[in-house]
């Protein structure tokens, strides 16, 4: 029953796929129930957002926006040589394009507010990333990041110290303590045989890592499989398949609308939009609740692709209605396990084990797993020849470090953290097995596993608690709670102040300095004028010996009100012996000029 007059809406197959029913995010039923992201702000951290365009302007949030490249509050994209800074605007359109304006398209969460942080259009440092991840974090609920380190099949990079600290700070203090939601696109380098476990943003436990499937539910040529990816959603695929239709910028070659948005960049904002719908239903969902809901409700879309699992958003975003918060995050960190063991060049891999006992977990209360991370230091003459697998106690295998043919880096891994979400919900106790294989040239030098460390994240939930929660979700997925007004109460958030007040931009600062300089100059000039005019008059010899002749005041001076200050410093004496002084009023000083002649008689004794 949902109809919009936006000309490209019928082509937005990801919202309503008429050609292949079911191959969409199934969101129209949610909209029908007035769940549109109202009250939620999503910020696109990218190359800017053209917020003046019709599809964005009504939902634009200037309060949540900032330009870190130019250091001002306006994230408007700047045209560049390659007509390339349309990326953020396209992502913003996917999330919150305004419907029924006859302009272009419709956003997944068209009732939400959309902000922009411009940070990708210039040199970027760790500190800038850190600022971006926490910018206006009491206003912005969801940070959508469709970017990351190069997906060239040879890069190993991710957030550095400050970026990591900002992500952690965001989930602790952002969104009134419920935690900022960081959605990151990952796995865009399939054609380079890349793997998103070499992307630190994807490995981070604080991010919702999103990949892509095409309209047919298959892995596109650019997609990567990886164990730290939480879910996938739709995007473009091969040439014969449709890309994502969304709002575009109208600068340079842009027309305000595009049918060619693709890659994981196009998938992540759809997930951000769906999370915005969840947060409207239940604003007090924590960052971990959001991850749990995705893990518990995502469905496998392709038997050949273990990590591709978008689910029916229709029910998924209504799951929050019955969702009570997950218990606190519990963790276990093993000692740093120094191995110094060679990785055989034969087919036989190196295996190392670590047993986590019940006593080890008693301290934190950790019972079931969420993210499992392994930090390794390995020396190897050709890093891309390594294959790293982690087996959880249940036997679940995660390929946490896939071999990469293009990665010939001779430095190996230096405290690199791989992670997996494949053991989510399993018992934490037991033996973990790290298996490292050298799949490279057998004539090269053997690598050495220097050390490793196991880090488990999870909660005090027992496997029984998890099953109970799954049963609750299944009953909610049946549609049971769709039609009644059932909602759980939401606790209030914490009162955490946003940034330290307003930061003055360079332009404002320059203006203030100019005004200040002008004021100082004018004050000096004014004082000087007063001083000089008074001195000239006060020392006129004529005033000492005879009646004081006041200098002629110009009409202009009177109008400007400068007359008072330029009167001579006269000491007047009235016939009754009283003193006149400049402390008297201007009216009193005007008396000699204004009084009729008869009243002036006897006042001529005024002396300078």
């Amino acid at each position, binding site marked *: 029953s949902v109809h919009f007059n936006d000309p490209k809406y019928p082509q937005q197959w990801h919202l309503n796929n008429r050609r292949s029913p079911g191959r969409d995010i199934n969101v129209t039923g949610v909209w029908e129930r007035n769940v549109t992201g109202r009250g939620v702000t999503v910020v696109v951290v990218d190359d800017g957002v053209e917020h003046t365009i019709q599809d964005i302007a009504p939902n634009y949030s200037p309060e949540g926006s900032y330009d870190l490249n130019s*250091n001002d509050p306006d994230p408007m994209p700047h045209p560049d040589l390659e007509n390339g800074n349309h*990326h953020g605007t396209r992502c913003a359109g996917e999330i919150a394009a305004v419907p029924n304006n006859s302009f272009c398209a419709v956003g997944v969460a068209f009732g939400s507010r959309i902000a922009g942080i411009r940070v990708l259009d210039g040199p970027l440092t760790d500190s800038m990333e*850190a600022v971006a991840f926490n910018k206006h974090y009491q206003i912005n609920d969801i940070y959508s990041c469709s970017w990351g380190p190069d997906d060239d099949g040879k890069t190993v990079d991710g957030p*550095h110290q400050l970026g990591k600290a900002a992500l952690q700070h965001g989930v602790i*203090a952002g969104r009134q303590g419920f935690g900022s939601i960081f959605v990151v696109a990952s796995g865009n380098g399939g054609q380079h045989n890349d793997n998103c476990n070499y992307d630190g943003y994807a490995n981070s436990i604080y991010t919702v890592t999103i990949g892509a499937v095409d309209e047919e539910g298959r892995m596109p040529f650019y997609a990567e499989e990886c164990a730290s990816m939480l879910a996938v959603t739709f995007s473009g695929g091969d040439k014969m398949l449709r890309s994502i239709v969304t709002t575009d910028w109208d600068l340079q070659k842009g027309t305000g609308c595009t049918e060619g948005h693709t*890659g994981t960049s196009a998938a992540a904002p759809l997930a951000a939009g769906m999370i915005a719908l969840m947060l409207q239903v239940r604003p007090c969902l924590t960052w971990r609740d959001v991850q749990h809901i995705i893990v518990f409700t995502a469905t496998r879309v392709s038997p050949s692709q273990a990590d591709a699992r978008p689910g029916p958003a229709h029910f998924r975003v209504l799951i929050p209605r019955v969702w009570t918060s997950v218990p606190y995050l519990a963790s276990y960190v093993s000692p740093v396990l120094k191995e110094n063991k060679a990785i055989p060049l034969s087919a036989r891999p190196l295996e190392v084990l670590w047993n986590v006992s019940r006593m080890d977990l008693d301290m934190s209360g950790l019972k079931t797993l969420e993210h499992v991370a392994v930090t390794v230091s390995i020396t190897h003459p050709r890093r891309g020849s390594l294959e790293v697998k982690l087996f959880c106690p249940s036997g679940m295998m995660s390929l946490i470090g896939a071999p990469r043919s293009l990665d010939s880096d001779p430095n190996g891994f230096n405290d690199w953290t791989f992670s997996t979400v494949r053991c989510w919900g399993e018992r934490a106790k037991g033996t973990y097995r790290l298996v490292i294989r050298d799949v490279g040239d057998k004539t090269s030098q053997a690598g050495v596993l220097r050390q490793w460390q196991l880090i488990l994240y999870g909660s005090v939930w027992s496997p029984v608690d998890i099953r109970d929660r799954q049963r609750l979700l299944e009953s909610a997925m049946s549609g049971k709670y769709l039609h009644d007004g059932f909602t759980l109460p939401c606790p209030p958030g914490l009162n955490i102040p946003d940034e330290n007040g307003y930061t003055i931009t360079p332009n404002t600062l320059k203006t203030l300095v100019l005004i200040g300089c002008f004021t100082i100059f004018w004050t000096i000039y004014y004082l000087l004028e007063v001083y000089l005019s008074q001195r000239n008059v006060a020392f006129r010899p004529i005033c000492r010996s005879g009646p004081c002749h006041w200098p002629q005041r110009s009409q202009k001076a009177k109008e400007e009100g400068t007359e008072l200050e330029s009167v001579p410093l006269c000491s007047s004496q009235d016939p009754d012996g009283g003193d006149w002084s400049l402390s008297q009023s201007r009216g009193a000083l005007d008396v000699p000029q204004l009084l009729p002649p008869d009243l002036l008689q006897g006042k001529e004794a005024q002396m300078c």
Partner: protein
Amino acid sequence: LVGAGGPGVQGPRGLSWAVRLDGPEGKGAEESLERRADALAQATGLMNAGRIGELQGHYLLVQPAGHRQARQVEAVRQQVEAVLARHEAVRWHSEQRLLKRTKR
């Protein structure tokens, strides 16, 4: 000016360091840390560009604007590193390098 430089300071292409300072917590901590950051900036010959976003105790120190020869840059780098390494208030420091990030 936090985190991004401003007039009179080198942009992200110039030398800059992120530092984490030890300091008091609670009321007045922010002012105390700010003073320490100013003092540290003075000791290193850099400018305090302010706190890094919302990260308490983290400050960005940047090289004042001006062209320098490569040799001078290296000398400045070594000098700053030496001061930061032995300064008692500095818990951690890191020179800010350009990161390569791509749209996906």
